[in-house]
C-alpha cells in the first residue's frame, strides 16, 4: 500500500484475521490501497462533528426474566392468524411457542390495507392506461399475477394456493438452472399451501397463499442460511427471522432461497459460491446485487413477492436492473432480527415485487416494532394507500437533486427519468431542482463505514472454529487466519482488510470517525432538502446493467453502481426503485424515489400513482425457450 509499509499490510491481514496466499496478497492489497485512496475525499471534505442522538435508557431494554431465546413471537399486526408450520427438527421449542400464544386469541386489530385498484381476473391484466414511450417488451407469461391479484383471486375462489404454488414451481423449472436465481426450493411449501387451502375464509391472513422467495441472508428455522458463502456451509438457522415469521403468520408461503453476492458485498450477484445469477432480460448481463437472486426471480415471474436486504442499494439497484419494484423502508420500520448483519447501522430488510401495490400489501405485515431488534421504531403504521382522482399527487413537491443526474449517467437513462418527472407533474406534483452536494462523497463515506462494520460482524466466522487442514498452522489463531483466508471470497477479503484498516489504532480517527461525521452530514443535507420538498426523484443507478464477467477486476468501478442509493442508507430514509422505461439495448431503467424518515407512505403513494398511469412494471422478460426460438428465427 502506498502509505502503508509492507509490514503494515501484514499487520492489516493480521487484524482482519486473514492469512493471504502469496499469489493473491499483492493484488488484494494494491486494490485495497486504491480503494483507500478513493476514500480520502471524505477526509478532504473537512466535515464538522455533529451531535449524535441519545435515547432514554431502559426505554427499549429487556426485563430481567429468563424465557428462552428469542422470547415470544411479536404479536402479528392485524388479526391473529393460525400459526405457520415450523421448519426443522427441533420439537420442544415448537410446543413452547404454541403454548406461548394460544390459538384463537385476537391481537389488537388494525385495518389491513385492501388491495388497491380494480380486481383483475386470472390471466388478465389491467389495461395499461398509457405507454408514455415506444413499446418495450410486452407483458406475457403464465404466472404473471401479482400478489394483490392472488389475494383477490383466492378471495373469489378462482384458484387454490396449491395451484398458484404449482404455477410458480413450473415457472422455476422453465427458468432454472439457467437463471441461477433460486438456490433452494422448500419441500414444505406444498404441504403448507395445502394446509392453507383447508383454512376457512375468515381465518385467512392478508397474504394468504402468496409465495415468497427469500434472500439467502435471512434466517429460516431449520433451513440453510449461507449468505452465498462457503463459510456457512452446512449451517442451519435455529430460528426464523421476525420479518419472515410475520409473513408466515399472515399466510405467506415461503417458496425458497435466492442467490446473492457473498455476504451481500457486491452489486452483481456474481460473487456467490452458488454461481452467478443472470439478468432475465439478457442472460449475458448481471442482474445487479446483492439481492440479485430475488430481483431476477421476481422479474422472471418465479414468485410474485421476494424479500431482499439493502445496505447500500442492494434491493433498489438490482430491482432497477431487472425492471421490478423494490423498497427500502425507513430504518427501524422493519425488524432486522434474523438478517445476517453486513453493516448493522445501514442494513435493512425490504420487499421486492413487480408493482408497488404488492409492496404495500407486504409492508403492512412486515412493519412494526420488535423487541428482538432494539433499533426498530414505533412509527405510525402505513395503513391504506390509495390513489384518488386524476391528480393524485396534488400539492406534492418533488426535488430533482442535480448531482444525481451527473456521475456518468447515460443520456437515455436521464431522459427516461426526466420523462417520469413530467408524468408526476401531470399527476399534480411540482418538480424543482434541489442540491445534495454530499452525493459526490456519499459513496466514499459508505465505503468507510460499511467495511468497518462488516469486519466486525464477520469476526464471528467460522462459527465452529477453524477446520484444520494439513497445511494450516497448529495454533488457534494461525489456523483461524488460514481457514478464513481460504474460505472467504476476494471481495469479502478486500472489505475485511479495508474495514480493519479504518478501525485500527492510529487510523480510526482519520478514517472511520470521518465516515461517521460524513453519514451525519448526509443526513442533515437530506433533512434540509426535505424542508423544501416532499420527495427526491432521480435515477436509481448511474450504471446500466453490465456483463457478467466484467468489473470483477476493478472493484472501484463496481462500487459506482451504488453511488445514488447509499445516501438513503446513510440517512436511514425510505427509498423506492421502480421501472420507468427501457434503454436502447432493451434493458430496464430504474427510477429512484426517496422520502423523509418515517414518510414511507408518501413514497409508496407516489410510486403507486405512477404505476397506475404507466405499465413499465408489467413488462416481463421472455422465458428462455421462447428466447431461443426468437434467436433461431
Amino acid at each position: 500500500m502506498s502509505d502503508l509499509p509492507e509490514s503494515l499490510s501484514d499487520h492489516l491481514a493480521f487484524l482482519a484475521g486473514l492469512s493471504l496466499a502469496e499469489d493473491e496478497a499483492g493484488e488484494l492489497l494494491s486494490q485495497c490501497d486504491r480503494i483507500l485512496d478513493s476514500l480520502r475525499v471524505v477526509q478532504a471534505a473537512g466535515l464538522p462533528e455533529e451531535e449524535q442522538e441519545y435515547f432514554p435508557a431502559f426505554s427499549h431494554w429487556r426485563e430481567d426474566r429468563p424465557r428462552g431465546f428469542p422470547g415470544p413471537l411479536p404479536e402479528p399486526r392485524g388479526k391473529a392468524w393460525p400459526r405457520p408450520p415450523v421448519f426443522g427438527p427441533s420439537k420442544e421449542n415448537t410446543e413452547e411457542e404454541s403454548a406461548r400464544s394460544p390459538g384463537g386469541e385476537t391481537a389488537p386489530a388494525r385495518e389491513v390495507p385492501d388491495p388497491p385498484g380494480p380486481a383483475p381476473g386470472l390471466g388478465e391484466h389491467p389495461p395499461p392506461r398509457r405507454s408514455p414511450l415506444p413499446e418495450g417488451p410486452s407483458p406475457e407469461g403464465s404466472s404473471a399475477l401479482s400478489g394483490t391479484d392472488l389475494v383477490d383471486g383466492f378471495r373469489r375462489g378462482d384458484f387454490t394456493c396449491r395451484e398458484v404454488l404449482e404455477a410458480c414451481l413450473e415457472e422455476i423449472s422453465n427458468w432454472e438452472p439457467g437463471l441461477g436465481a433460486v438456490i433452494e426450493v422448500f419441500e414444505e411449501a406444498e404441504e403448507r399451501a395445502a394446509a392453507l387451502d383447508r383454512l376457512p375464509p375468515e381465518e385467512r391472513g392478508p397474504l394468504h397463499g402468496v409465495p415468497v422467495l427469500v434472500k439467502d441472508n435471512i434466517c429460516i428455522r431449520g433451513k440453510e442460511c449461507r449468505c452465498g458463502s462457503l463459510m456457512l456451509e452446512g449451517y442451519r438457522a435455529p430460528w426464523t427471522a421476525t420479518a419472515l415469521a410475520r409473513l408466515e403468520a399472515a399466510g405467506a408461503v415461503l417458496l425458497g432461497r435466492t442467490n446473492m453476492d457473498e455476504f451481500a458485498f457486491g452489486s452483481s450477484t456474481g460473487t456467490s459460491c452458488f454461481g452467478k445469477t443472470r439478468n432475465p432480460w439478457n442472460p449475458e448481463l448481471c442482474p445487479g446485487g446483492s439481492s440479485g437472486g430475488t430481483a431476477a426471480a421476481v422479474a422472471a415471474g418465479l414468485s410474485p413477492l421476494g424479500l431482499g436486504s439493502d445496505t447500500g442499494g442492494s434491493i433498489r439497484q438490482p430491482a432497477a436492473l431487472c425492471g421490478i419494484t423494490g423498497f427500502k423502508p425507513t430504518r427501524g420500520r422493519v425488524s432486522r432480527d434474523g438478517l445476517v448483519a453486513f453493516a448493522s447501522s445501514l442494513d435493512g430488510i425490504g420487499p421486492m415485487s413487480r408493482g408497488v401495490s404488492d409492496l404495500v400489501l407486504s409492508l403492512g405485515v412486515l412493519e412494526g416494532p420488535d423487541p428482538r431488534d432494539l433499533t426498530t421504531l414505533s412509527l405510525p403504521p402505513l395503513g391504506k394507500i390509495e390513489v384518488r382522482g386524476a391528480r393524485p399527487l396534488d400539492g406534492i413537491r418533488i426535488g430533482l437533486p442535480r448531482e444525481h443526474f451527473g456521475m456518468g449517467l447515460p443520456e437515455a437513462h436521464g431522459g427516461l427519468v426526466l420523462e417520469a418527472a413530467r408524468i408526476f407533474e401531470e399527476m399534480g406534483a411540482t418538480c424543482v431542482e434541489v442540491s445534495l452536494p454530499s452525493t459526490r462523497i456519499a459513496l466514499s463515506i459508505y465505503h468507510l463505514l460499511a467495511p468497518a462494520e462488516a469486519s466486525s460482524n464477520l469476526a464471528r466466522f467460522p462459527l465452529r472454529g477453524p477446520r484444520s487442514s494439513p497445511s494450516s498452522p497448529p495454533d488457534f489463531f494461525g489456523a483461524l487466519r488460514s481457514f478464513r483466508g481460504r474460505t472467504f471470497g476476494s471481495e469479502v477479503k478486500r472489505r475485511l482488510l479495508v474495514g480493519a484498516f479504518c478501525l485500527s489504532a492510529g487510523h480510526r480517527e482519520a478514517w472511520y470517525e470521518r465516515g461517521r461525521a460524513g453519514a451525519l452530514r448526509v443526513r442533515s443535507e437530506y433533512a434540509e432538502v426535505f424542508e423544501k420538498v416532499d420527495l427526491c426523484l432521480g435515477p436509481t443507478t448511474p450504471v446500466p446493467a453490465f456483463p457478467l464477467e466484467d468489473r470483477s477486476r476493478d472493484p472501484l468501478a463496481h462500487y459506482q453502481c451504488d453511488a445514488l442509493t447509499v445516501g438513503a442508507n446513510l440517512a436511514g430514509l425510505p427509498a423506492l426503485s421502480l421501472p420507468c422505461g427501457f434503454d436502447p439495448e432493451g434493458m430496464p431503467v430504474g427510477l429512484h424515489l426517496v422520502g423523509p424518515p418515517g414518510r414511507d407512505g408518501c413514497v409508496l403513494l407516489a410510486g403507486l400513482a405512477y404505476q397506475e398511469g404507466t405499465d413499465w412494471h408489467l413488462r416481463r422478460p421472455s422465458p428462455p425457450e421462447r428466447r431461443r426460438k426468437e434467436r433461431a428465427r
Partner: protein
Amino acid sequence: MTLPLRPRIGLEIHVRLATRTKLFCSCENRFGAPPNSLVCPTCLGLPGSLPHPNRTALELALRAALAFGSEIARRQSFDRKHYFYPDLPKGYQCTQQRTPLARGGSLTLPDGRTVSFLRLHLEEDAGKSLHAGRKTWIDLNRAGTPLLELVTEPTIRSPKEARLFLTILRRRLRWLRVSDGDMEKGSLRCDANVSLDPGGARNDRNEEGAPVPRIEIKNLNSFRRVEAALDFEIERLRELARRGVSIRSETRSWDEKNDRTRHMRWKGEAPDYRYLPEPDIPPFRIDEEVLESLRLSRPESPRLRAERFSRDHGIPLPVASELCMERESADWFEALVEAGAAPDYCANWLRREFRSCLRRARIVWDEIPFLPGECAKLLRMLQEGTLSPSAGRRVLEAMCSPLPFEEALARVGRPPAGPEPDLDRLVEEACRRRPEALEDWRRGKENAVHALIGEAMRLSGGYADPKALRARFDARRAPGT
C-alpha cells in the same frame, strides 16, 4: 542506607452482577449448569442474532456507582472490542470500556483511609476454555453474563491493604445485592497493577519525567493470591531496583503452583482492539429521574444502618457495626427485634450463638430454613431463663436440621422424661468438683459463681434451670453450709 521504595498498587476488579439473565439475552446467568446448556443464538453469536440488553444489569451497575459516590455519565454507549479467541463467539466483546458508565467515587476502609475509583463500567463476559490434555473444550454458559468492571486509582499502599480493600468491597457489593461476590464461582475476579513510588511531587513520573514502569498481574482469583502475588512482585521489583536493573512495563500472570509471577507480554504489545460503536444498541441517556428513583430505592448504607440501630435500640455502636457488616445479619436483627426480642440480648446472641450455629450446620444466611418469628420465641425463652443456653443451642441446631420450633423444643429442649433433676445434689457435686471456684466466690469474687453454675449445668446435661441453681448456690455462700 536507603529506605525500600514504596509500592503503589491499583486493582481492576470484575464483578459478575446478580441478575437472573445474561447481559444481552434471556439465558440464565447461573453458575454450575452442564456445559453449553445456558445458550441461545445471541450468546452463541449466531449470524442474524441481535443483543437484547438487560435493564436490571444497568440498574445494578448504577446502584454500585451511586453507592460509591461516582459521577455517572449522562450519555452512554457500548463499543465492540475485537479480538479472536476460541471462547469469544462473536469475535468481539461488547463493553463500555471507552465510555465508562461512571468515573470517580471511593470506598472507605475501616482504618479511615479511602481508596478512590478511576472508573466503573459494564461489559459482557467471555466463555470458558477448559484444557484437557491436547484438547480444549469451550463452555459458553458464561458467555454474555454481565460484568461490572471497577478500576481503582493506584493509591493502595500495601498488598495487605489491597486484600483488605477487596474484602470490604466484596462485603459492600453483597450488601448492595449487586453481586454474590462468590470467588469460587468466579463472581469476583481481580487483576492488579503495581509500581514502585519514586517519591517526588508527581508520583507517576520519575525524576526525569518519564512515566514510572508499571507491572500488571493477571489471573488473581482469590484474595490470598492477590496478596501473595503482590508481595512477590514488590520484592522482585525492589530486588531489580537494588541491582540497578531498569524496570520495563509488562504484564505478568500468577503461577499458583510455584508461588511466583511469570512474564506474559511487554507493554506496547497490547493488541489493537479496533473499537467500533455497537450499532445494535443505540446510545442512551441516563436521565435525572432514573437516578432519582435509584437513589430512593437504594439500600441504606451499613454505616447509617449501624448508627440507626445504635440510636433506636440502644446498643453500643461497635456491636451495631459488627451486626451491619453483613446485610443478612442486620436484616435478622431487625426482624427479631420486630418480633419482640430484646435488642441488646438479641444483638449478642446473633453475633455469637447464632453465627457459630450456622457455621456448625454449614449453612449460609440465605439458606436458613426457619422464620424470624420462630426464632424470636426461642430467644424469649432464653432471655426469660426458661431454657438454658445449652438447651437453646441444641434447639437452634435442630431447627437448622430443619425442624419446626415446637418439635425441636419437644425433642431436645426439655429434659428426658423422668424425675426432675435433684438440684441440691447437683450443687453439692459442683462445689465438690470446683473447690477453688467456690473458695474464690466465698472470698468475694462475684464472677466465680458462673464457673460453679456452669459445672452444675454440665452435670445436669444442660437441663437444669440456671436461675434455680443460682438461688441454691447463693444459699450456700456462707462458709460451712
